[in-house]
């Protein structure tokens, strides 16, 4: 009796969670993979096995290539910048500066707001000529720029927004980590005349490494996951200069209704995420922990 009880109870406890996870994570992941080998069924054309067709057409699909490249640039641009800024913010807010509660609020506020809401606001900032950014730059004699209408600046503009939105969120994790660092460490260093930069480089930064890893993974996932601002601000344009992978999936699936091709694209996205997971757990994780 007791033995069966011990076996049954945990599975009963896990049942709702596992059913839902299977239904909305594991089975869909597998189905995505399977469906990526079939053609999308349409009203009068049934699904048909097409093998690797979707994958090979991906290679000649300029939009996919652009999305892949954009997403790489987007991740490489936003992740380090967000990390550096959030670390800086945490250090500022953790210091003895006057009004740090206000500063903390100012840094954190963007993360509470819906991305779609702030994207609407920023859309106006980027308006050529009289948008906030051009008005501001105009004071310094810069010409107006079509920030979101120029393929050279559009991705950068979206990245700025993403950094603005996310840095405050990551700041919290750094703040938590900084507060874990004993203040006597900096006092001990102060006795030796350690410059603040040396102390940051040799002590704070290494001690923050586990947090940095955590933040980095989150930031990378977000850079593949969060596309609300693309939907609102550019819809991937101009000429796909701001199309990100998931946005392309969304477009192909829910605008073009080519769900099979969207599945193939999703498989690529999953592969990228899996690779990142591997890098995190397999390689980096071992290097950054000092305990």
């Amino acid at each position, binding site marked *: 009796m007791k033995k069966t009880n011990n076996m049954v109870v945990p599975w009963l406890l896990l049942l709702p969670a596992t*059913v839902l996870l*299977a*239904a909305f994570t594991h*089975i869909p992941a597998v*189905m995505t993979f399977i469906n990526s080998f079939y053609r999308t069924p*349409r*009203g*009068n054309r049934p699904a048909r096995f097409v093998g690797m067709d979707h994958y090979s057409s991906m290679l000649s699909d*300029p*939009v996919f290539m652009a999305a892949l490249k954009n997403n790489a640039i987007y991740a490489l641009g936003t992740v380090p910048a967000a990390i550096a800024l959030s670390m800086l913010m945490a250090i500022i807010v953790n210091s003895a500066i006057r009004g740090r509660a206000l500063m903390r609020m100012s840094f954190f506020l963007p993360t509470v707001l819906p991305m779609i809401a702030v994207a609407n606001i920023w859309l106006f900032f980027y*308006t*050529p*000529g*009289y948008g906030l950014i051009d008005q501001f730059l*105009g004071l310094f*004699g810069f*010409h*107006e720029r*079509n920030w*979101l*209408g*120029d*393929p050279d600046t559009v991705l950068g503009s979206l990245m700025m927004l993403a950094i603005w939105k996310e840095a405050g969120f990551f700041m919290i994790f750094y703040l938590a980590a900084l507060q874990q660092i004993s203040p006597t460490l900096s006092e001990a260093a102060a006795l030796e005349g350690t410059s603040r930069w040396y102390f940051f480089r040799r002590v704070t930064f290494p001690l923050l490494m586990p947090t940095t890893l955590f933040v980095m993974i989150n930031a990378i996932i977000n850079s593949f996951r969060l596309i609300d601002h693309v939907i609102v601000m550019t*819809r991937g*344009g*101009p*000429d*796909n*200069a701001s199309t990100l992978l998931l946005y392309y999936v969304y*477009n192909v699936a*829910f*605008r*073009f*209704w*080519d769900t099979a091709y969207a599945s193939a694209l999703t498989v690529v996205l999953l592969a990228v995420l899996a690779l990142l997971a591997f890098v995190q757990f397999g390689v980096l994780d071992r290097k950054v922990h000092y305990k």
Partner: protein
Amino acid sequence: MNSWTGWIKGALAGVAMLGAGAAQAAPVEINFYYPVAIGGPVAKIVEDLITRFEADHPDIKVKPVYSGTYPETISKALTAYRAGQPPEVAVMLSTDMYTLIDEDAIVPFDDFVRTDEDKAWLEGFFPVFMVNSQHDGKTWGVPFQRGTTLFFWNKDAFREVGLDPEKGPQNWDEVVEFATKLTKREADGNVSRWGMQVPSSLTSYWLLQGYVAQNDGKIADETGTQTYFDSPEVVEALQYWVDLAHKHKVMKPGVIEWATNPKDFFEGRAAMITTTSGNLTNIKTNAPFPFGVQILPEHKKRGAPTSGGNAYIFNGVAPEKQAAAFQFVKWLSSPEQAAEWSIKTGYIAAREDAWATEAMKAYVAEFPGALVPHEQIPYMVPELSTHENQRISRVIDDAIEASLTGKKEPAQALSDAQKEADRILEDYRD
């Protein structure tokens, strides 16, 4: 696969009921999806119309569903259709016709047109609007909120540079000539006013179509399976558009947002703009200066694209509901209602008899600008509409954006786009 969804389905059956709702009442109830693409109290207008319709037809109840933008409306409608609960009637883009046919989602109107009165009603639409509503000799949708593009100019700016404020440019060369005069460069090289502005952020193919029509070309054929993106007429048309920004430097380079284009006009940062006729009311209320409005300038000839929605009746619903939906659509697009809708929203009434109603006459007398779209009707060409239209339009939009942003030469961009379109449409050719 089915077994596990079935399992969850069973488990959730009770909750799913909440989503289904909808009790059966004695009158035939129909769902009406309609998009709202223009700001303003459109919902109110629609509900008003429905109330009157229901008063006329006590046996029919219409349930309006406000469904967002056009793309969202078709997404929702198709989703509902696939889930086996399509709306009876929906207003969706006329260019979505092929997509809807391919999905087997809609039924032709011909089956419902029985009486002479019905036939007269159907024949009353301007033929050009019907091109995007008919396929294979059948009528799959009827024009509902249709639009076109118009040309606006700032009379104060004209006066300032010595142009006749009452007369807009009449052809491509005049546009360049006027725009050059109107473009104001500051000493530091910064442009404080552009001569000409054409939006290009979304569905920019639509504006390109105007230039193509004026260049006596065609962007696609009417079977929905063939595009002519790389034809010389299309290339020349795009080249002209691109030249406005890059060669003549009278238009803001890069992609211009639909949303900011009228705003630029109000702010005096663009002296002449092309935009949808749907903006007439917006410009009338918000322009802080006298403005002119006219049909698009000509090149080889006059030309402008149509745009906007059709009302479609869905497949997969009970015949009596389809019949009720037909009654509703017919009533909605009859002269009085068409005129009223046009006056209240700024869309073009798609039938001549609507323009002859008293209400419309009175409105035009009060606001002559409203007549301009009507004046353009003889020159209009149907909007680009193909199978997988969303995809094809994205391909050509991308080509236009690539050219306007200087990433590709128009000829190159269009030839790439044509190749891509051929690849997509291949499956649909016999």
